[in-house]
C-alpha cells in the first residue's frame, strides 16, 4: 500500500480540492500503474476536518470531530498495488507526482500466511469478511 501524506492536509478546509493540474498529473500516474498491470485499488480521502476520531481509554470510546489539533501528518489517499518486492513499491512511489514536503509511506499488507499459527487459528471462521490479502504493498 502506498499512502499519501499531503503537506497541510491536517488543517485543510472541508471543501479543499486539488487543482485541475495536480489531478491531471495524478491521473497520468494512475494510468501508468494500470498499464503496468500493478494497480489493484486507489482512493482519495476528504480532509480530516470532515472526519472524526474515536479514541479509547479505560474501556470507553470518545469521539472527537476533525480537524485534529495534535495531528502533524494525515493520510490523503492510497494506492494498493501488487508488486514483487519492497523495492518495486518504492520505485513506483518515487514516480508519483508529489509536491515538496509531501510524503508517500510504503507499507506491506499482511497476508494470513505472515501470521503465526495461533493467530491464523483465531482468524478462522470469520466468514465472508472482506479483506485485501492478495495485495502486497
Amino acid at each position, binding site marked *: 500500500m502506498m499512502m499519501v501524506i499531503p503537506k497541510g492536509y491536517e488543517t485543510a478546509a472541508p471543501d479543499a480540492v486539488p487543482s485541475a493540474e495536480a489531478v491531471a498529473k495524478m491521473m497520468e500516474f494512475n494510468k501508468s500503474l494500470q498499464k503496468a498491470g500493478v494497480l489493484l485499488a486507489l482512493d482519495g480521502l476528504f480532509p480530516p476536518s470532515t472526519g472524526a476520531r474515536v479514541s479509547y481509554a479505560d474501556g470507553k470510546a470518545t469521539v472527537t470531530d476533525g480537524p485534529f489539533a495534535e495531528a502533524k501528518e494525515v493520510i490523503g489517499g492510497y494506492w494498493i498495488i501488487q508488486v*514483487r518486492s519492497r523495492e518495486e513499491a518504492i520505485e513506483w512511489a518515487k514516480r508519483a507526482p508529489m509536491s515538496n514536503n509531501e510524503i508517500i509511506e510504503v507499507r506491506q499488507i499482511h497476508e494470513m500466511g505472515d501470521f503465526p499459527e495461533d493467530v491464523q487459528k483465531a482468524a478462522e471462521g470469520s466468514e465472508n469478511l472482506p479483506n485485501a490479502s492478495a495485495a502486497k504493498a
Partner: protein
Amino acid sequence: MSDVHKTIEAVWKIESMRLIAAIARVTRDIGIAEELAQDALVAALERWPEEGIPENPAAWLMTAAKRRAIDSLRRGRMLEQKHGEIARELEFQQRRLGQAMDQALDQVIDDDVLRLIFTACHPVLTVEGRIALTLRLIGGLTTAEIARAFLLPEKTLGQRIFRAKRTLSEAHVPFEIPRGDELRSRLESVLSVVYLTFNEGYTATFGDEWMREELCNDALRLGRILAELLPNEPEIHGLLALMELQASRTAARKGQNGEAVLLLEQDRSLWDYVQIQRGMGALHHAQKLGGGAGNYALQAAIVACHARASIAADTDWERIVLLYDALLQISPSPVVGLNRAVAVGMAHGPAAGLHALDALRAEPALANYHLLPSVRADLLVKLGRYAEAREELHRAIALTDNVREHELLSRKLKQAMLID
C-alpha cells in the same frame, strides 16, 4: 544482493517492457531489442552503484541502449567497408538511428507494447517458447526467475529463449499487431500463454510445490496489462475474471501441513473476498461486452458459482452443469466432460455422475489422467462400492507425480479402507 542492485532490479521490472517495446519499434526485431535493453541494464549495473540511481531511469536506459545500437551499427559496417562514401552513409545512418530511438522513447505508445506481446506469443514459436519469451519481455522476469518458476535449469531456459528469438528472426516475423480475423486467433494464442502461465503456478504439474503463487501473480499482471491495452475484447476480461476467482482461493487450498485442500472442503472464510469482487467485476464486464458465452467467460462463470456460495452445500450445481454444457459446445474437451460429470454427480446424484463419467472412459486423452480414476473413486465411495473405489484410487496414485496430490489420494484411500 546490495540495496542498489535490488533497486536496479525493481527499476528493470518497471521499465523493461516499455523500453524493449520502444527499441523494437526501431529495430523491428524483438531479439535485437531485448539484447540492446540487456546491454543497457548491464551498463546500469556497472554505473548506478557508483553514480546513484538517475532521476529518470527510463531515459538513462534508453540512452545507453541507443549508444550500444550505434556502436554495433558502426562495428558491423566498419568490418565490411572503409570507403569514404560508406563512411558518410554510415554517419547518416547513425544519426537516423539515434534520432529514431530518441523519438521512440519520447512516445512509447501502447501499440508498441501490443506488438511486443503479439510477437512474443507468435504461433511460429513452441508454446514453451512463447511462455518464456512473454515472461521475459513483458513480465520483466530474468531467465533465472523463469527457470525457478518452472523448476528447470537456468541453462535450459536460456536456450529456450535463445531459440525462440532466433525462430522469430529467421521466420521474419513482422513487429506488428494482427488485423481483422487474424487478430482473433492471435489473441487466443496470447490468452492461452497467460492462462498456461497461471495454471503452471496454480497447479504445479510436478514437484512438491502445490502452488507457485508468484507465477499466478505474474499471469494476473499480464492479464491486467492486456485488459488495459485491448479494453473491448471480452475474452481478456473473461480470462482475468477466471484467474482472479481461482486465485482468490489460494489461502484455502493449502492445509496447515502444506497438504492440498479440495474446493468443497475448503474453509471459505479464507477466500479473498476483495479478489472475488474483482473477478466478479471482470466477469460482468466480459458479459456486458457480449462475451458471456466465450470460453474463459464460461469457465469464470462456473468458478463464480462456487464463489457465490458461502457454504459448499449452497452451490448451484444445476447451473454449473448448464454452464459446462455450454462450454462443451464451444470447446469440446474430455477434461471439461470430466468436470461436467462431477457437477452432474453433485446436481443429480452419484449414479447420474458415474453414468456421465463412464461415457468418457474410452477417451484416449484421459487414459493417463489421474483425475479420471480419482473422480470415479469419489462417486463409487458415495455409492458404497468401496472395493471398486480402492481399485480406482490405486490407479490414480500411479498416474500422478505431484507429491501433494499423491498425499491427497493416499488419504482418500485410507478413508475408503476404514469405511468398508
